Each structure stands twice: as structure tokens, then as C-alpha cells.
């Protein structure tokens, strides 16, 4: 447990240092569609399909406003120890996570 939280702390620090905005690299439209699907359905299993919250908190823009993107990206990549939020690195790249977080902060288009 301790190791894991240290690790995520480290990750936050690293990410904070590494200016996350570089990560908004191009993502193929087909992959974007897959990510949207993942967001609604797989993230949605804990955060709600409409992202209004479930076991995990709401991920609507109002709720995320003011939170640093880098912290949110680190949460998605490395999870939060001691909570059900799982790490997605290995399944998602840093660029994909940055794209998802930017999308969450802006608001997800309603199409399924």
C-alpha cells in the first residue's frame, strides 16, 4: 500500500514537472472513438455512463474545474491507492490520458 502511494506521489511530481500540455499530440479519429466508448462504458461503470458519478465521483466539467490537469492525468494513469480508482497505464498511453482529461474538463459530446 505504502509503496503504491509513494509511487503515485512520485508520478504526480514527475508529471507536474513534465508539462502535461505536450501530451495533446494527435490521436487517430478511430482511436478517439474507441476512447469515447471506453470513457462512457468502462470508466462509466464507476463514474456513471453520463459521468454524473457512481461509486467514483462525477467527472463533469463543473466538478473538475480548478483541478490541475496534471493531477487528474496522474490519477488516471496511476490510480489512487486505497480507493477503487485503478491505474490505466499499460492500457492507455500518456497522450491518450491527456486527451481524455482535456475532454472531461471541456465536456464530453453527448453522442454514444
Amino acid at each position, binding site marked *: 500500500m505504502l509503496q*503504491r502511494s509513494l509511487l503515485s506521489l512520485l508520478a504526480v511530481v514527475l508529471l507536474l514537472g513534465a508539462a502535461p500540455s505536450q501530451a495533446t499530440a494527435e490521436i487517430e479519429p478511430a482511436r478517439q472513438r474507441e476512447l469515447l*466508448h471506453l470513457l*462512457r*462504458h*468502462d470508466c*462509466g*461503470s*464507476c463514474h*456513471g*455512463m*453520463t459521468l*454524473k*458519478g*457512481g*461509486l467514483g465521483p462525477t467527472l463533469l466539467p463543473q466538478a473538475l474545474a480548478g483541478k490541475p490537469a496534471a493531477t487528474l492525468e496522474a490519477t488516471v494513469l496511476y*490510480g489512487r491507492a*486505497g480507493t*477503487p480508482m*485503478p*491505474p490505466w497505464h499499460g*492500457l492507455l498511453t500518456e497522450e491518450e490520458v491527456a486527451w481524455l482529461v482535456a475532454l472531461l474538463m471541456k465536456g464530453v459530446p453527448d453522442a*454514444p
Partner: protein
Amino acid sequence: MHRSLLLLSLLSLLLGGCATTTLRGTGDLGLIIERADGSVLIVESTHQQTLARIEGLGDLSHASVVYSRDERYAYVFGRDGALTKVDMLGHKIVGRVMQSGNSIGGAISQDGRLVAVANYEPGGVKVFDADTLELLADIPAAYGDGKFSKVVGLEDTTDNRFAFSLYDAGEIWVMDLRDARNPVIEKFRNIGRQPYDALVSMDGRHYIAGLFGEDGLALLDLWRPERGVQRILDNYGRGEQPLPVYKMPHLEGWALSEEHAYLPAIGRHEVLIVDRHNWKEAGRVAVHGQPVFAMARPDGRQLWVNFAHPHNDTVQVIDTVTHQVIATLKPGKAVLHMEFTPRGEHIWLSARDDNRVDIYDTRTLQHLGSLPVRNPSGIFFTARAHRIGL
């Protein structure tokens, strides 16, 4: 000319009349949730067909269903806090209340007169009249100083009681609704961190909550509540770091035979086998991924297991005598739920990303057919009406 017109209208009258007076039962009916569209399908398992689609149920991600004791009405619990009553014969919505901002499921009382809903936001339980959907009781899940907990694992048991768990508080509450407007609540504290779902045994005796924050489960014997909550399968992970969990297991589908209980291990590619007499571990079965549902065929002879992302294209069948995996099926993309026909000769599987529900023979393990369904998730047959804890 006149005469044939008359005949025609007579005929259509008759036909119309017929359609509404044809008698049928409801014992082979069910609902399939179309989670992305806010609709449900009414299906019939004898001829494996869809009878109707009903729309307008709102956000149905994680939706679940209970049935009235006459199997005429379904109560659908939506994620967005809606409770919708569906007429299985009339093919229409006959009642609907937005009862909270965010809910997780519900249960129907032993006498069929009360429907209880578990809410995340605001955290608590609400109890409704099953006929009218009138609110009868509101039980906020208050703990600590002025905080409210998400409620999970709300299950019906005998004597018109319900049991549920407080995710944020680590408590189990048992609610006696003999007088529905004045619930009597018994609280069990310090049951372990982050209970995330629960089940009640078919006889209504044992309530078991899975704990996300602990390496074990919480057991309450509802026949001997004075003994309090007991930890079972303590340290089943043997101190090893669990894998990340991409989908929380569902415990309502936990399988109990007379001898054993079969539980999905959280964060592990294992199904745990527990001896029901002493609640000690009786073995484990290595499986293809992290189990989400481990469901026993109604006769208890097989266990069907589906898995979390990224293994959710697979279903495995376990023989409950040999505890061997006897089949590994790849029914489709994102198999979210499984439901047996009332006596278990068939199983229906929802393949969410293939927009299909597949039907398998549980003896031959052969694929029998499919129904087109948009993003199917839960499948619920009316036979649940007569099972405690479903």
C-alpha cells in the same frame, strides 16, 4: 359493397378484440436493459423472442430489475435515480418517480408491498409503495458528524426486512419494515472498509458484504444478529498486492450451493470456494480474468463466470463437483451479464459491444441463437420474483 365494408370492419373489430383478450402467463418473460438508449426489451424465453421495446427510462447504466410477486410488473432501478414500473403484459410504463440524483439498485419486500432503493446521492435508502410508488420512508445513511454514505448491497430478506451496507462508513444496517412508515434500524459498525456490494443467501439467513478495502468479507447471520458481524476469508489474498480492479464484482450473483459458496476474488484471477458450514476457504479455481459475476445454474451443478475489462470477451463454465473449468467460451465483445432460464437449461448472455444477446444450451454448451439488442447489459427473468435476495 356496403356489405363487404361492414364485414371488414366487423373483422377488424374482432381481431382487435382478440389481441387484447388473448391470455398468457408471465413466467417465461423477462427484461433486457439497453443501457445506452434508456430502453428495455420485453423478451420471452420459451420461443426466444422479443415482444416489445419500451423507451424513456433514462440513464440505465448499471440498471437492475425486481418483479412483483404476480410477475406482472417490473421495477427498474436506473442510475439517474429513477424508479420505473413496467407492465410486462401491457408493454408500457405505468409509474415512474425520480427518487434521487444517483442510485445503485433496489429490492422488493418479502410480501411484495414495498420497493426499497439504494442511493449514492444523497446517500440513503427510500422505500416506496409497490402499487402506487408513493414514498413511505426515507432513511438517510448518516454517519460520523453529519456525513452521508453511499449505500450498496441492498437486499431483501425474510420478515419484511432489508439489509444494506454503507460504503463510506463501513457499516451494515438491517431495516425492519413491519411498519413501513416507521422503519426500525439495527446498525452494525466497523464491519470493514469500503463494502462495495453484498448478497443474501437463498434462505435469507446470511448477508455477506464484499470489502474493497480489506482482504476478506463481512458476514452477518440474520438468525443470530446478536453475534454481530464476523470477518470471513480473512487474508484470502495472502498479503499479495491485488491487481487493479477495472470493474467491481457483483455479489448478488454470488453462487451458493448447500455445501459451498463461490465468490469472485477481488483483484485476482480466481473464484474462491467457501465451506458454508464453517465459512472457511475450501479451495479456489484459477480463471481467465477478474470475475465479475459467478452465477450458479439454478440446480447448482455449474458455475458461469464472466470477467472484467480487458477479459470481458470470455465466459468460463466451472463444474461444481470437480471444481474444474470445463469450458471457455468467447461469446462476443463485452459480456456484461448472464441470466439462466428459470430451471437453467439455457443461459442468456449479453454482448454489449456486439449489440447482441446470445442463448446457450447449458448441457451441450452449444450456441442456440441470438437476439439483436442495442448495447445490452442486464438480463432479468421474471422467475426472480420468487427468490429471496434477488
